[in-house]
């Protein structure tokens, strides 16, 4: 039996579709398990959020209440981190939050694939966020956006501080993407390793009843992973809000 914990992260074409769907510049595009999960995540979340508020009652139903609470949660987050004029970025941040949250949660289902455990996906999201921050900054402040890298300090410290500020800005997409990727990767690898322990103990004959111990540990780690899934989605969204706040209001403190 193959107990390799890293095998769960393999992206492979599914449903026996060995033929690529189409080709872009010589690279064949397959319909992979990752693509299937992303389609499922987008379909389920958008269907739920649009259909649950259909009844539109003053005293909400359960589904309507869930959709409205998630809306309010993200709206409060944007308002506290970015201020009043950050609310025009609500669709962007809400989509990001719901996508990352649902990808993380759908990956917890045993046997499914975690889309956000691929650095390609998380780096695409983080690059999109930083690109949005840069574009918004230049559109709002013009070339004055570069004042973001000039903190309030005497001139002899600025020579040291400006390169540090620039470098710390440029590492933001990397840290944003690697944080989400590594959290998901580490969680699922831990679950797979302990699953291997259960199998190994269970097939050891005399020691088979001891296999309950790693199983209980897996249950505890699943609870932790559910918390981490929500927390990482929340941190991704709130860091997006904080970076947008820096682009919109350069160094003003309100």
């Amino acid at each position, binding site marked *: 039996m193959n107990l390799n914990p890293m095998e769960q992260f393999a992206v492979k074409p599914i449903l026996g579709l060995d033929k690529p769907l189409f080709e872009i510049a010589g690279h064949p595009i397959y319909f992979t398990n990752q693509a299937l999960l992303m389609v499922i995540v987008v379909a389920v979340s958008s269907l739920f959020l649009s259909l649950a508020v259909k009844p539109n009652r003053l005293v909400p139903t359960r589904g309507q209440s869930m959709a409205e609470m998630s809306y309010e949660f993200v709206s409060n987050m944007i308002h506290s981190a970015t201020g009043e004029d950050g609310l025009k970025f609500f669709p962007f941040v809400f989509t990001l939050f719901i996508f990352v949250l649902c990808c993380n949660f759908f990956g917890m289902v045993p046997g499914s694939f975690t889309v956000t455990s691929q650095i390609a996906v998380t780096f695409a999201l983080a690059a999109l966020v930083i690109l949005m921050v840069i574009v918004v900054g230049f559109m709002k402040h013009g070339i004055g956006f570069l004042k973001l890298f000039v903190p309030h300090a005497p001139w002899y410290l600025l020579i040291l501080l400006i390169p540090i500020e620039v470098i710390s800005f440029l590492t933001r997409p990397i840290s944003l993407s690697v944080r989400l990727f590594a959290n998901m990767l580490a969680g699922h690898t831990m679950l797979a390793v302990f699953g291997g322990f259960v199998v190994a103990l269970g097939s050891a004959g005399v020691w088979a009843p001891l296999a309950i111990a790693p199983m209980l540990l897996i249950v505890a780690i699943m609870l932790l992973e559910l918390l981490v899934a929500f927390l990482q989605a929340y*941190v991704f969204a*709130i860091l997006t809000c904080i970076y947008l706040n820096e682009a919109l209001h350069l160094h003003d403190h309100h």
Partner: protein
Amino acid sequence: MEVMAAKMIGAGLACIALVGAGIGIGNVFGSYLSGALRNPGAAATQTTNLLLGFALCEATGLFGLVIALLILFAF
């Protein structure tokens, strides 16, 4: 020394990053607790910063994991 053995040693050494992560996370939650026990009314306003600080500390520990994986599988 052969390459695979050196890779294993390198990956093991990269786990020293977890020391910093552990100290940092303990620091974050400890400061929050001592502040919350002095001023319980203001504790709820800082939960956002608490979770943010925790995630940022955790991230540095996980950068060590990424270096370990890079050493093991990419070089």
